[in-house]
């Protein structure tokens, strides 16, 4: 660390910014009732800290200090602007009268403010891509440019999304509050969906520089941890477990050349055991609550895989049983497909193939490349090469991901010459 006191103070303020800025922002939005006003106040509060702290020393409670400084600066700024825009006089007076300094510092209040911020950013009245952008920017503190890079969008496009979302929050009066107990399950689902979308963007997408994408998954996990800390709902716990268990396989799921490696062919020594045990412990915690849902069940399935020493040693019976429960909790053709693959592992390829063909015959998943590649794999194992070829080719036409395409081409080649 630098010997220069000015440098040291700058480092201190920066550290406080990293640790506290999102929490200070969340409280300021509640106090001031407006995202933009709060963001400006946050900036002014830190600008004041840079000026005052070297002289007065770092306050005992930096967060509380920053909230009151921000609130004071916002009201002061509104009064200045009121000289040119009389409509602001009332707002300034109201804020001054209504918002004391009292309710800012206790831990519980701060946690509530963070939850309010998360629920508002993930409000179902906002378009899904705006929910993601707003959550990453306001809750995680990513910059517009960072989010644009991660989602391979232009910064001006993303900036517009954020501006429109904030305008909608203001104009449609989307409330800044934690939903009531009755609304909570539905609203929590929306939050979990945003977090899982962010995670998958970093985990599954194959374009763009890999490092940035990895950061996106890391950000989702950080959000998941934050949410579990604030609101330990079994599904929030389940989602965090699911993300950690997926993340544990990151290095194993692609070769050094960037080729995709499927679960049964992965080098299990490369799995991150720390993440596996953290994920498995969370699964147990979620299941014990007996109020678990689809995320906890998917995490439980991932945990069974994680605990098996090899693909062959996997407890397929348990996996099929978990899929049965999942199908009842959250029926979907994709879950059915995954169950069919597990059944094939438990009872042999013929049994799995019958189930997949039944799904396809219903007209479900006919455009889903993974359904055709799963069918192809089972045909291949049964020695029905021509059928396997046809299904691999169908899957190839449907996939849009480069490593997946190369993977399917290799499989197709292994089926030999059609002639």
């Amino acid at each position: 660390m630098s010997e220069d006191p000015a440098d040291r103070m700058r480092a201190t303020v920066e550290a406080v910014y990293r640790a506290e800025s999102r929490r200070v922002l969340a409280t300021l939005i509640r106090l001031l009732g407006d995202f933009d006003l709060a963001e400006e106040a946050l900036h002014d509060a830190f600008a004041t800290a840079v000026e005052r702290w070297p002289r007065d020393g770092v306050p005992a409670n930096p967060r509380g200090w920053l909230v009151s400084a921000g609130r004071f600066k916002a009201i002061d700024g509104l009064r200045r602007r009121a000289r040119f825009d009389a409509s602001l006089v009332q707002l300034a007076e109201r804020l001054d009268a209504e918002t004391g300094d009292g309710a800012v510092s206790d831990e519980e209040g701060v946690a509530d403010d963070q939850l309010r911020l998360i629920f508002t950013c993930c409000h179902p009245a906002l378009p899904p891509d705006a929910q993601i952008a707003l959550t990453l920017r306001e809750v995680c503190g990513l910059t517009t440019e960072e989010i644009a890079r991660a989602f391979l969008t232009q910064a001006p496009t993303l900036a517009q999304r954020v501006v429109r979302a904030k305008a909608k929050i203001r104009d449609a009066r989307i409330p800044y509050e934690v939903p009531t107990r009755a609304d909570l399950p539905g609203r929590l689902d929306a939050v979990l969906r945003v977090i899982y979308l962010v995670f998958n963007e970093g985990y599954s997408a194959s374009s763009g520089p890999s490092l940035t994408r990895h950061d996106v998954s890391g950000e989702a996990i950080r959000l998941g941890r934050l949410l579990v800390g604030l609101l330990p709902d079994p599904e929030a716990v389940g989602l965090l477990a699911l993300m950690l268990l997926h993340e544990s396989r990151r290095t194993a799921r692609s070769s050094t050349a960037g080729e995709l490696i499927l679960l049964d062919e992965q080098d299990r020594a490369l799995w991150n055991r720390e993440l596996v045990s953290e994920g498995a412990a969370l699964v147990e915690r979620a299941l014990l609550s007996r109020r678990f849902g689809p995320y906890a069940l998917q995490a439980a399935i991932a945990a069974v895989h994680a605990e098996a020493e090899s693909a062959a040693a996997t407890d397929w019976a348990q996996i099929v049983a978990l899929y049965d429960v999942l199908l009842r909790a959250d029926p979907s053709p994709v879950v059915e497909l995954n169950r069919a693959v597990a059944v094939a592992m438990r009872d042999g390829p013929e049994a799995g193939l019958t189930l997949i063909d039944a799904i396809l015959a219903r007209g479900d998943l006919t455009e889903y490349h993974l359904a055709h590649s799963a069918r192809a794999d089972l045909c291949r194992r049964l020695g029905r090469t021509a059928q396997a070829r046809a299904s691999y080719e169908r899957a190839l036409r449907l996939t849009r991901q480069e490593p997946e395409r190369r993977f399917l081409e290799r499989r197709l080649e292994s089926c030999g010459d059609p002639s």
Partner: protein
Amino acid sequence: MRYLCLIYSDESQWPKMPKAEQDKWMAEYGAFTEGIKQSGHYVGSERLEAASTASVVRQRNGKVSITDGPFVETKETLGGFFMITAKDLDEAIQLASKIPGARHGSVEVRPVMEIRRP
């Protein structure tokens, strides 16, 4: 007097240039900047990101609207500026003509309003 020299050029040419040529341009800009610093004409300068990164912001009746920029759609776009001090417009023009960008693009020279700040 201070003058703002706005450099407009066809930015699509820049990525097509070989690295050596880009380096040569950068070196010329460096030499120009150094020269006007030594002669006391330099006030400031910035280079902008590509015009495709621009956003145009308007506020009407309290509502903010944003569109993809730049504000002026021209083949040559604003890529950077120098703020200089010169005794009159002729000296400013003379200095502006030495900006490397003047050789393939255009440099708009605008007098700066002298506002006394309290």
